[in-house]
């Protein structure tokens, strides 16, 4: 299978890519790692007339500290996020998620920004980045702005970015001491995509009680969902196995998952409670006392 014919332009800067996007409008499409776009083009689900390659733009890769945030360049491939010492030191939940995307060849090529901008409802990164309270820096010719993760994923394959904007950086707050994060996933046995997954960021006081919790669930909606009832249930309580299980039992509340050929609604909701518990337990386990 071949993609339909297209013209190719290697952008040399974000500004040049932005100008090319304006020039080509709806007929242009940005190429990052290409591990969602190229398969879609081979299936002729997408047939852009011009591909604007961001892979040739310098300065969009790598992980660095900026104040109390980790900043991850949008073109950083999953393997490099997963093996980053900064990520492994501060954001083990993100290392979990980037280690289970696709397979090793896919992780060597697929990028964090590409996955986020693609907003596949069965992707791993939107879920863990919701739990970690990330924000996204997007640039247009008129300047840049930051979009909070809770406002970013608006629908199936749809984000709050405008068509003239490029995602350049992912900012993730470095959790305070006493905080742990984790990601747990039930993959589809054939595709490896998320059936249901959960990300958790849990802060625990020395006394053992929970001072803050963010829990996100994937697979139950058009994008990642905050498990608000679970978060409230944990707040201020001792993080015992019983309390965690009771909180996780509320992970699918007020969701409306859709049945598919692999899993029914009841099954997805049940599995969400199981994976929420796994993610919370693993996050608590990682809190350094």
């Amino acid at each position: 299978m071949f993609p339909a014919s297209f013209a190719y332009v290697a952008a040399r800067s974000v500004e040049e890519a932005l100008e090319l996007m304006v020039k080509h409008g709806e007929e242009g499409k940005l190429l990052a790692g290409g591990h969602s776009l190229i398969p879609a083009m081979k299936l002729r689900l997408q047939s852009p007339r011009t591909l604007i390659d961001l892979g040739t733009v310098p300065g969009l890769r790598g992980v660095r500290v900026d104040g109390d945030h980790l900043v991850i360049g949008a073109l950083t491939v999953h393997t490099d996020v997963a093996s980053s010492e900064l990520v492994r030191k501060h954001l083990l939940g993100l290392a979990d998620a980037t280690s289970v995307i696709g397979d090793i060849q896919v992780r060597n090529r697929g990028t964090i920004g590409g996955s986020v901008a693609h907003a596949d409802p069965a992707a791993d990164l939107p879920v863990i980045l919701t739990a970690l309270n990330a924000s996204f820096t997007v640039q247009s010719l008129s300047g840049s702005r930051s979009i909070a993760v809770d406002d970013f994923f608006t629908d199936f394959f749809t984000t709050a970015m405008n068509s003239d904007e490029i995602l350049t950086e992912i900012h993730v707050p470095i959790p305070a001491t006493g905080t742990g994060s984790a990601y747990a996933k039930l993959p589809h046995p054939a595709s490896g995509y998320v059936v249901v997954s959960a990300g958790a960021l849990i802060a625990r006081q020395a006394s053992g009680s929970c001072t803050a919790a963010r829990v996100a669930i994937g697979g139950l909606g058009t994008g990642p969902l905050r498990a608000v009832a679970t978060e409230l249930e944990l707040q201020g309580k001792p993080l015992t196995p019983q309390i965690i299980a009771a909180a996780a039992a509320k992970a699918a509340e007020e969701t409306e998952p859709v049945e598919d050929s692999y899993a029914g609604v009841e099954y997805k909701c049940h599995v969400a409670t199981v994976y929420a518990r796994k993610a919370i337990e693993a996050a608590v386990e990682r809190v350094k006392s």
Partner: protein
Amino acid sequence: MTAEAEYAAVPINVAVNGINYDAVVEPRTLLVYFLREQLNLTGTHVGCDTSQCGACTVHLNGRAVKSCTVLAVQADGAEVKTVEGLADGDNFHPVQEGFREKHGLQCGYCTPGMIMTAVHLLETNPNPSDDEIKHALEGNLCRCTGYVNIVESIKWAAEKMRKG
């Protein structure tokens, strides 16, 4: 503008198995077809052609990738290694030897991809456990289901490479 001019071919420069190639490709050319049809390096196989089976695995700047999911234009300025580039003259790479010694292939179709993924694994992890080998091979499918001997072949190669 004519269609021909609109979708102009693009000049690329790629080093494949240590040899530098200047070529001109249509933008939609996938790396695997560039290797097979323009360079006649047919060791790299097209299997599923949907980024799942890994038969087309090559190294792009030292990392295992699925060449059916990379455009040839994206390899401009890069170094590519294919299964043809592993042996040193008549001496097989230890992973190739391992597949021969431990019967790591049946029909052989998946073998080039399996070998390229295995070489990448052993370059990053010289002493992998069985579980680590299986995790690394997640993106390579063997329709003969000969996985047990593939894992044995890689363990054999790992040991040989550690001994030098």
